[in-house]
Each structure stands twice: as structure tokens, then as C-alpha cells.
């Protein structure tokens, strides 16, 4: 009896799911973004962007929050997300997985992005233009495992200057998860040295969230291309010809300083896949991409 009930209910549940699954092509454009900072505020950050796009594009737009960089790539690849605000590395990985997808816009700052190496004052490390070889033997934290500014680039430059793998340079290597957390961990001394996205550092510094008596920037990497908007190649088929260009135009025309502060960028400019060749090469050289 109970069993039958269980089963029939289970079936109804499955039917409900499959209804969802079988519903025709998605009408709502779904976008997401890598959870690079302040995870509790992701929804507040991007819901207004969805509203802006909806108004500009004339189709329903929805933002879905996602917990990890890899999950955004997977959602994009599975067509559960059609547009995404990726980092350099995650964008390259996503476009490799989804042939036909293109980078359409990047922040003005993203053409010349940097990583800051930051250190707790107990280390005695001082800011310099030369690579701080004194970081050897310290504890070190990256950001997320899939981050460009928090992992790929710092790992590349550190290994290049120290001629060793990061695992052999530091006493301990960790992954904080996101840039805000990296700053908090180095400031509290949980890690002595860390690598952080320079935009997040500057923003939190301006907001007074950083105690500069405890933590400071000791080195800046050379510049590299980073964040960009990437869109799937098949959106024109779903929303009509020229849709990709419409999205691109909407992004390039985004001028509202309050909305731009969410990224935070001063504006968006055109981007193309080839802009990110250096990222791909770097990722290959440290073995993150086969």
C-alpha cells in the first residue's frame, strides 16, 4: 500500500520534472557570472543587470547564481546558461567546450588586467618592482582553483621567476575560494602571502574594508587580458538573427555608473576570441588545459 503510494508519487514527481525538461526551447535568456567575490551579494549584484538587459533586448532575462567557476562553465556548456561574465581562463575553457561561442565584450580595465601579490606585515616583505623572491618558504593562498587573476597568472609568474613548481616553493599552498576571502585570509595572517585580483583589491581598499596596517601589495604582475562576456553560438537560432549583435550592443551601451560598479568596470568595449590567446597559451604552459 505505502509502497504503491510511494511509487505513484515518485512517478508524478518524475512527470513533473520531465514536463519541465520537454518544454520547448528556452525563451528566457539566462546569464550567469563567475562567483569571484562577495558571494552573499551575487544576486543583488546581477539581478539589476538582468533587468537592464531585459529592457534593452525585449526578451525575458534571468540571472542564476552559481557556486563555482567550473559550474558556470558546465551550465554554459549544457545550454542552461547562454551568456556569461567569465574570467579570462574560464572564458577560454568555456569557448573550447562550446564551439561557435564568442567573446563579445570586455571591461575597459580587462585589456590591462593585473594580479597583486599581497603579504601580511609579519613577513616583513616590502613592496618592490622586482619579483619578491623572499616569498619562498611562506604560506601562500590562491583564489579559486579556476581563477585567472587568482590562480593562473600568479602561478605562471611565480613559477617563471622562481624556476620551481609552486608546491616546492611555499611551505603551504591553499585556495581561498574567492578574492575577498584571499584578502581576509592574508590580513588575518591565516596565510602569509596571497594573490588577488587588482580590481577587487582597489574596490575593497576604497570601501575601507582593508586594514593596511596588516596587509599590503608587494608586487604587481605584468598586464594580461581578463574578464569578458561570452555568448553561445546558437543564440541567433533561438532568439532570431542578429541577436548576438543586439546583446553586444546592449553591453557596450551600458553607461549607468551604478550598474558598471557592480563589475566593477568603467565601461565595456568590444572583445573577440583571439584577444584571449595569451591566456590559452599560459594555461597550456602550466598544464591547466591539455
Amino acid at each position, binding site marked *: 500500500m505505502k509502497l504503491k503510494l*510511494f511509487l505513484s508519487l515518485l512517478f508524478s514527481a518524475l512527470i513533473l520534472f520531465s514536463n519541465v525538461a520537454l518544454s520547448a526551447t528556452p525563451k528566457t535568456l539566462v546569464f550567469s557570472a563567475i562567483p569571484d567575490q562577495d558571494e552573499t551579494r551575487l544576486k543583488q549584484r546581477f539581478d539589476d543587470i538582468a533587468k537592464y538587459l531585459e529592457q534593452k533586448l525585449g526578451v525575458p532575462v534571468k540571472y542564476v547564481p552559481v557556486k563555482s567557476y567550473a*559550474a558556470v562553465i558546465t551550465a554554459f556548456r549544457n545550454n542552461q546558461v547562454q551568456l556569461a561574465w567569465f574570467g579570462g581562463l574560464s572564458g577560454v575553457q568555456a569557448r573550447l567546450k562550446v564551439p561557435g561561442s564568442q567573446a563579445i565584450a570586455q571591461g575597459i580595465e580587462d585589456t590591462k588586467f593585473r594580479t597583486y601579490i599581497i603579504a601580511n606585515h609579519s613577513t616583513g616583505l616590502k613592496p618592490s618592482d622586482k619579483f619578491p623572491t623572499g616569498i619562498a618558504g611562506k604560506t601562500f593562498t590562491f583564489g579559486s582553483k579556476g581563477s585567472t587573476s587568482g590562480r593562473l597568472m600568479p602561478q605562471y609568474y611565480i613559477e617563471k621567476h622562481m624556476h620551481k613548481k609552486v608546491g616546492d616553493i611555499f611551505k603551504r599552498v591553499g585556495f581561498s575560494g574567492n578574492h575577498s576571502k584571499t584578502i581576509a585570509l592574508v590580513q588575518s595572517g591565516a*596565510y602569509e602571502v596571497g594573490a588577488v585580483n587588482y580590481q577587487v583589491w582597489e574596490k575593497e581598499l576604497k570601501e575601507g574594508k582593508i586594514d593596511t596596517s596588516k596587509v599590503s601589495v608587494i608586487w604587481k604582475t605584468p598586464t594580461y587580458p581578463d574578464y569578458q562576456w561570452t555568448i553561445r553560438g546558437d543564440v541567433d537560432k533561438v532568439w532570431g538573427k542578429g541577436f548576438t549583435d543586439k546583446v553586444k550592443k546592449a553591453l557596450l551601451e551600458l553607461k549607468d555608473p551604478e550598474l558598471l560598479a557592480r563589475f566593477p568596470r568603467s565601461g565595456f568595449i568590444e572583445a573577440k576570441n583571439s584577444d584571449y590567446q595569451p591566456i590559452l597559451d599560459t594555461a597550456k604552459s602550466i598544464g591547466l588545459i591539455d
Partner: protein
Amino acid sequence: MDSVYKHSRAWKVSWLFVLLAGFSLFFSDIEIISLEPWQELKRLFLGLLTPDWSNFSEIIQAFLQTLAFAILGVAGGSAVGFLLAQIFHWRWIQISCAFIRAIHELFWALIFLQIFGLHPLTGLLAIGLPYAATFAKVYAEILEEGDKSALQAISRNASTISTFFYARLPDLWEHFKTYTSYRLECGLRSSAILGFVGLPTLGYTLSSAFMEGHYSVVWALLLLFYLLIATIRYWVRPALLPVYIIAAPFIVANDSTISFDNVQRFFTEDIIPAPIMRGDSLSESWHWLSDLLVNQALPGIANTVVLTQIALVASGILTLLFFPLISSHFFKPVGRTLGHVLLVILRTTPEYILAYILLQLWGPSMLPAIVALALHNGAIIGHLIGRYSLEIQLRADAGRGLNRYFYELLPRLYGQFLAFLFYRWEIIMRESAILGILGIATLGFYIDSSIQELHFDKAMILIFITALLNVLVDALSRYLRAKLRLTTNVDCRASNDYCTARE
């Protein structure tokens, strides 16, 4: 000089495990990394005084999702498990179930996330699949060990189905019910944890709040979770279950879709080892595999085993400290109530969340993982042993205090204690592996890294190795229990104990 006094096997095995754990300590990394860990701990507990309910709708949403995934996962798992239990004597069913069980819900979630993305099926299967395998095993044991005398009164012409419903089920129903409702509690913990990898349950909100150090929000979530589990027997009623099961799909439903191309791609491309996909030569393939084994699998296995062995012995030590807290042989009712509260809180908090909290405070060494595993498991077994101790009648002239503990109770409870500890061995190992996702270098760390780097082929091999390791420990534990002749009370009707130990 040969002593006439001969140590028992249990005594020798215990010391062997203690020595192994001591040896493991040399290879473990157990320092506190944060410079001001107590500062942060203070902030955490200040948050307890000011729980923040301001995001109430968000909190309620997270709880509804947690409940709905748990109910659907456990209901589906028990239905499938019940069917599997009928054919559990088939060897290959036993093997597949053991294997599925050996993979933690979080690993299943990471796998299904790749196939179904944000679709609710991800969470449903992540709970339902391993739970079905566990249900199959325990239901089969209940059927096996149950009273069969009613069978003799049944007509030989009765069909298998009516025989089952008239001669077996009435006797066993209580066992099924007790075990299934206990598993619902586990399901709630599992469901909560799935949020850590991105499902919209409690863990999602909790980890975000933790990341930002919003401890008042953390406490609001945790307090509500304790309340939910503490009141479980009031809101889980047979009459209400259908309502929950009907409502749950509407709660978890979202508008993401499943594409069969993705499912196919996962099985035919993503998890096929890269050298095969590329058509590498044999030596290149070997290089790829040995690189994976030497640089990821081996260190992962070593750390997982080290953590497991230390945590196992630490759990044992804590159990021996905890059980008197709730035993009338040692404390008056007021003291016992406090003991119960402490043990309930430690038992209810999923070890993953406990480890997460301690990691944030002390930094990612093995120490937080050891403490979390020992506290959680010590509280579970301590609770069971404390209850068993009540059944022991002491003579009026029995010693008090330490004498009572060491000479009267411990010798009588020790077999029971070892049995429970060995039952938890495999569970502790599964958790040790999964804690790697939090940054400790056990197998979970390498699995999570492979997934973050989108190398699903590597992730699958590492998950396979993790499962094998678990099956191995399970077999070893069964061997030791048989060798030491350790058994526990298998009556599910009398108490949840058997269930709790088995998980």
C-alpha cells in the same frame, strides 16, 4: 618472562589501532595556521548572541529546498532500495550497491552536476542513488534477520506477494519504519551539505555567509537547522508524508532543462580518459596514467588513510569521555540533560559543516578535520554507549567515580564500543575523503581540483579509487568484527541504535 595473564584480542587490536594512529600523526599536518584563531572564534560565538533573521525569506527558501530534496531523495531511495532488497541475494546487486554506497553524496552531486547541471534531478539523484544502495542492504538485512515463524502458518498455495504482505511485512514493518525515518534525518544533513557544491539548499547560504564572516546569519541558519532536526518526530508523520512528497517536486522544480546530448556527451566524451580520446600511443597513455596515480592518487590515498586512522582513534577516545555524560551511573539528571544537549548538537551538525567552521577558524591543516570527525562520531557512539550503560545493573557496593568507570563499566561496554567504532570506520573514511573539497589534501581535494579544471576523466578515476578504498575498509572492518566476535543489538524496533551506527 611469560606472564600468566593473557591479553584479549580486543585489547591487542585496540593498541594496534592506537599505534597506527600515533604513527599516522607523524605524517599528518596538524598545526593551527591562523595567527589569530581565537579572535575569529570569539567573533563566531558573538554571532550566536545576535542571530540575524533579516533575510528571512531567503532563509526559509533555503530550508524548504533542503527539506524537499531530502524528502524526495529519501522517498525515492527507499522505494528503489525496497525493490532491490528483494533481489539482494544476487551477488552482482550486492557488489554494485556496495560500490554505489562507497561514493559520498557530494561526489555524486559533483558528477550529476556535469550531466544535469542545475536541474533538480542533480540533487535528487545525488541523495537518492547512494541512499537506495544503503536501503537495499539494510532492508535486506532486516528481511534476513526477521522472525520467519509466520511463514509456517501460510498456505502453500499462497502467492509470493501475498506471503510477503501477510507473513513477513506485519512483523517487520516497525523495523522498516524506524530505519527509514532515521534515514530521513541523515537525508536532511546530506541535503543541507549539497548546498556547498551549488544546490540551493542550506549549505549554499551557509557557506556564502561564512565566506564573508557574517556569523550572525550563520547562527540563524544553524539554530533553525537544529530546531528542524530536534522536532523531526513531530512533523514527520505517516499521514503527512504524502503531502510532503506531493509538495516537494514543486519546491525543487526550476526552469532549467535536461538535454540528452549533454548526457550522451558526458558518457561518450567527458569521462573517457584523454589519451584514449586523443588516440595516444601506449607509452603516452601510460605516462598520463602514472602521472595521475603518482602525483594525485597516491598522496590523496595516503592523506585519506592518515586522516581516517587518526580520526577513528580520536573518535574512540572522545566516545569514552562522552558516554558517562549521559549515564545515570555517573551524573544526576541535571548534568545528564546538559550532556544530552551537547551530544545532540555535535551529532546533528554534519561533520562537513563542523569541519568547514573549524577550517575557517584555524586554516586548512588536518587538525580541523580530525577534530570535526572526532566530535561528530564521538558524540554518536558516545550516545549509543551511554544508553547501553543504563542496562548494566551494578552491585550496591560497586566503586564510585573512576573506579566505577574503569573496573565496572568499561570492561562490560568495551565490546559494544569496538563494534560501533568499527561500523563507523568506513563512514569516517568516506568523510575524510570528502573533506578534501574544503582544502585538506585527501582524495576529495584532487577530485575537486580535477573537476574545477574540467578534467572529468581524471575525476572519475579518482572517485573510482576512493570507492575501492572504502569497499576495502568496509571488508576489513567486517573481518575484524567477525574475528573479535563483536555484534551489536540488531533490533531496530527497540531503538535507533543499530541504524545510527550503520548510517
